[in-house]
């Protein structure tokens, strides 16, 4: 084993850069992709100004609700300042929550609670206005409901009578639990992060899996190169038979992959706070390495193999839905899940079916060679 490792190290020394590049490619590409799309999302947020005339719980509630939206970037400032910024087009629009807002709401008054300003270049004014109005309306209705509850409680002489604040609080809790109006685009296998509320949530490990498919295939191109090389004729006169040599080399690659995967695990945990079951990751890695190896064994021409690797990755990307939301159509076609080697990994399951399949194919190849060579 050590001798074979020495031969592999000699070969690796000639391709340090390309081997390192493709080993780290899934990690780097995934990180860049996620950072880049998050940056774009931030850049496309609409800047709006909010002026608070009072700091009552209800007024702060509206501010908070607007700030939670991924569509806008909220600045809180005074009315004068806000209008100057608006004139300079630094703000898209300005919303002023007047003094007496909470009192008016409690009274059930729904007019003149908020004043809005916009400039001739307020592109996003209408949707933002709709959003603000809907928040205000929601709060007004909530308040009205609270009074109705209080009336009923008085009428039926309940022992503990709750006040307005308590009922409002309770209703917000119920709403949060039910989460009726929550919509974000969901990608295959993506989990919702706890504290943020972005427009898109990526499945970090899903994106990594796609890049990994590509890099694993490309890293195993040596199988084809050495298969078709004149060198192969020399293996009749070596202490190790050619298919043993190839399999041992594959194990070295698998070792490298697993080391890099461990590093990736820590990296993603640290920077994207995503976790993954180590066994899920391990089975996926073994399966994808064996699969790439089998594809390489079946290939005769390196350039066709490269083209095939890109095409295959693209196909898997589309049917996996890690870059495009596919909830609608792909999930209907169940057989696609079985032809997709990434499917179980994307669902955070242990890669079982494809792993067993790959192992069987590998054994078939291995024992056939064993027979031919004997």
């Amino acid at each position, binding site marked *: 084993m050590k*001798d074979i490792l020495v*031969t592999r190290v*000699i070969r690796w*020394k000639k391709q340090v850069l390309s081997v390192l590049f493709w080993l780290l490619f899934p990690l780097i590409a995934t990180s860049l992709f996620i950072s880049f799309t998050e940056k774009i999302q931030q850049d496309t947020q609409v800047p709006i100004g909010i002026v608070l005339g009072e700091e009552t719980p209800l007024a702060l509630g509206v501010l908070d609700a607007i700030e939670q939206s991924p569509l806008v970037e909220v600045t809180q400032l005074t009315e004068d300042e806000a209008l100057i910024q608006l004139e300079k087009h630094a703000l898209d629009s300005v919303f002023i929550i007047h003094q007496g807002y909470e009192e008016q709401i409690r009274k059930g008054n729904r007019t003149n609670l908020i004043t809005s300003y916009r400039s001739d270049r307020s592109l996003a004014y209408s949707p933002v206005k709709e959003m603000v109005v809907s928040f205000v309306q929601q709060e007004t209705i909530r308040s009205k409901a609270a009074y109705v509850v209080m009336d009923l409680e008085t009428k039926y002489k309940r022992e503990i009578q709750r006040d307005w604040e308590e009922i409002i609080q309770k209703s917000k809790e119920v709403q949060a639990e039910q989460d009726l109006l929550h919509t974000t685009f969901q990608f295959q296998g993506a989990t919702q992060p706890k504290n943020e509320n972005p427009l898109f949530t990526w499945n970090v490990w899903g994106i990594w899996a796609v890049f990994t498919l590509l890099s694993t295939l490309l890293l195993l191109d040596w199988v084809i190169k050495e298969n078709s*090389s004149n060198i192969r004729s*020399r293996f009749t*006169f070596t*202490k190790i038979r050619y298919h043993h040599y190839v399999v041992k080399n594959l194990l070295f690659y698998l070792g490298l992959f697993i080391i890099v995967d461990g590093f990736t695990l820590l990296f993603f945990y640290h920077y994207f706070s995503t976790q993954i079951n180590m066994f899920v990751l391990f089975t996926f890695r073994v399966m994808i390495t064996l699969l790439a190896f089998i594809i390489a064994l079946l290939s005769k021409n390196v350039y066709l193999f490269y083209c095939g690797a890109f095409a295959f990755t693209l196909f898997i990307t589309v049917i996996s839905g890690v870059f495009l939301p596919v909830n609608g159509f792909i999930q209907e076609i169940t057989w696609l899940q079985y032809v997709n080697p990434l499917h179980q990994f994307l669902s955070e399951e242990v890669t079982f079916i494809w792993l067993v399949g790959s192992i069987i194919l590998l054994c078939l190849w291995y024992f056939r060679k064993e027979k031919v060579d004997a």
Partner: protein
Amino acid sequence: MLNIESLHKSFRENVILHNLTFTVNPGEIIGLVGENGAGKSTLLHILATISKPSEGSISLNDLSYTTERKKIRKLIGYVPQDIAVWEDLTVEENMVFFEKLSWVNQTKEELRNLCQEMKLYKWKEPVNTLSGGMKRKLNLAISLIHHPKVLLLDEPTVGIDLKSRKEIGTYLQKQAVENELMIIYTSHDMDEINELCNRVICIGKDPFYKDMLLNSGKEIISF
């Protein structure tokens, strides 16, 4: 001693080798000649255990080719017709690479000496910067790492200059005498054959090569 008896080889209906019987003794260099497609490489493949004969028996030092292939392989050095070395590795890396896979362990010093004996002095240079002659020498050196007793060379000197040719020839002669090596090699160069070989085997239908060698005084075996 390499013993070949009633050797036949055919691919489907196509008979390539018909009833070959001869013996090679230690220290002997045998030339193998014949027109293109006569079956020279085919014969060397069979003697190298790379392919099997259709009929006939071969034995090396009383080891049978049919039952003791593994032992026989350790005694055989085969120099392929196409250069089989890593083009992107240096001479040193090539030698170390194949030494690690070989049955016999050798130090770097020993490997280097092996190259220098056939006047291959480049060591740290990548193979793709070497001349054709030097590549041929390396191709030969790699086949000798495990100290074989039989050396089979398929056109070892094709396409290289006269000086390298002579150097390889001298080296082979020395090896045959000093290490009692049995050498069989093919070539289309009759001067080379005349100079190096003790005996010549002619195969193929064309009598051209046989006629050319008639006046050389060499023992000719033809099939």
